[in-house]
């Protein structure tokens, strides 16, 4: 009996060791990035690699920000990500309210059309979207980065499913007391939907902030670049300047990692609700 118990304890210990080792391997590239960004050149180009910098320096960040306008890239990314996120909260909540609560001709058919668009890969829509924006004269502007993202079928779907779980009695009472349709959405549905709204907001912000392909396609001038685009171009130009490259990567990763640490449950809820990929 005690041998069996000892075996069980050993199993638990081994399991913990394996899991923590796996987690360490998973985050090793992150640690490597952060530590390298604070190293001086001799520390970076040493073999065998040295994990801890012999002296912590910030000159890689200074050099990276001087070599490319990362401040400006940052401003662009934040502006675009925040505007798109707010825009989606407005458009998706109103559309979701219509699909969940209002009765109009062709409602369900229209909803399925929306759902169907989620099946079409973004790459199929990319070229026609680009040509439409070109026709508008919006290429290389904020509008090109913001407007196509202002509504999303995924957001409408996510919020509609949540709105459907809210009991109607609350609204009926408010309607009898003279509350308008919009008042019902604003004063009853939205306050009750904070978790769903937070999930959508965080997912959208992450998607837009991390987006690369669309920015690569519609942006051509340096001062319009987003952080991700700026980083990719910086990578092309400073192929082997690892200290600066790591400093720039830390910069491009930081906002999302901060949001992630404080709001992890919304990321996880978003994934389980949708199974959506990065």
């Amino acid at each position: 009996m005690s041998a069996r118990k000892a075996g069980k304890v050993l199993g638990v210990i081994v399991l913990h060791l394996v899991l923590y080792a796996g987690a360490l391997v998973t985050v090793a590239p992150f640690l490597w990035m952060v530590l390298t960004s604070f190293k001086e050149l001799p520390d970076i180009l040493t073999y065998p690699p040295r994990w801890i910098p012999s002296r912590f320096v910030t000159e890689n960040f200074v050099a990276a920000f001087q070599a490319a306008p990362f401040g400006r890239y940052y401003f662009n990314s934040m502006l675009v990500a925040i505007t798109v996120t707010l825009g989606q909260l407005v458009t998706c909540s109103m559309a979701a309210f219509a699909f969940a609560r209002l009765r109009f001709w062709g409602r369900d058919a229209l909803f399925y059309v929306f759902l169907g668009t989620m099946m079409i890969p973004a790459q199929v829509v990319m070229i026609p979207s680009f040509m439409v924006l070109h026709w508008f004269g919006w290429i290389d502007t904020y509008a090109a980065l913001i407007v196509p993202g202002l509504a999303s079928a995924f957001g409408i779907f996510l919020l509609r499913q949540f709105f459907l779980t809210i009991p109607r009695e609350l609204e009926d009472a408010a309607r009898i007391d003279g509350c308008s349709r919009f008042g019902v959405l604003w004063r009853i549905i939205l306050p009750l939907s904070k978790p769903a709204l937070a999930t959508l907001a965080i997912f959208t912000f992450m998607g837009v902030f991390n987006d690369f392909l669309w920015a690569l396609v519609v942006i051509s001038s340096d001062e319009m670049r987003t952080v991700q685009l700026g980083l990719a171009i910086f990578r092309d130009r400073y192929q082997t300047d690892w200290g600066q490259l790591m400093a720039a990567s830390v910069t491009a990763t930081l906002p999302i990692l901060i949001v992630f640490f404080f709001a992890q449950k919304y990321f996880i809820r978003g994934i389980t609700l949708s199974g959506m990929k990065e």
Partner: protein
Amino acid sequence: MFSAQKEFVGFDNYLTAIRSPEFWMVTKNTLIYTLGTVPLNMLLALIVAYFLNKKIAGKRILRTAFFAPVVMSSVAAAVIWRWVYEPNFGLLNYVLSWFGIPAVNWLNDPTAAMFALIVMGVWKTFGVNMILFSAGLQGIPKHYYEAAEIDGAGRWQRFWDITLPLLSPTTFFILVMSVIGSFQVFDTVYVLTSGGPLGTTKVLVFYLYENAFKFFDMGYASAIAYLLFAIVFTLTLLQTKYLKGSVHYSI
């Protein structure tokens, strides 16, 4: 490219694609990437999710660590991995040297580059599937296990006869989504290898991007986009047809 007058060319762009050896090469590369990432990704995700579902100290920290690569931008991730794969000072060659494995020029060797891309792809995305498997595991009623234990079923037997069958709807969903996702890989290819060396990592979306926005052949690129859609759609239908039979919703 944007002239008002456009000539209708029928299926010419599609025929050009089908006759082009490059189109078949990038399709093959995409397929290799998919076959390399999806099974490895799912296996790793299932193992981690399965063990995290047990009594583990510091479960939250572990989950955060495994999930962190997912939220990171793929551009930054690829920049870091270029450094990991660096032939002279990179982390990977250093670790391999402990086992006496000679240095590999990961990103410039035509046989190694796709492998490097696959490893990074698995690292970047398996956290999503881990979360989905965790949700699936939590949805399996506990009383099945209790009943099986009373009947004397061992750990493996419980895993094969209860966990796997009841997890199959989740597994099927993950498989379909992962195949779709890996056919659309682009960012990491662009930053890590730019399709090289010798085109060995050029995938469908990279080919599409190149034709549309480097060569400005919008017609041909649109045909590629629809062929990509057709391939993904066909694969999804095939998976539904041939695997739906092994999906169980109850025992």
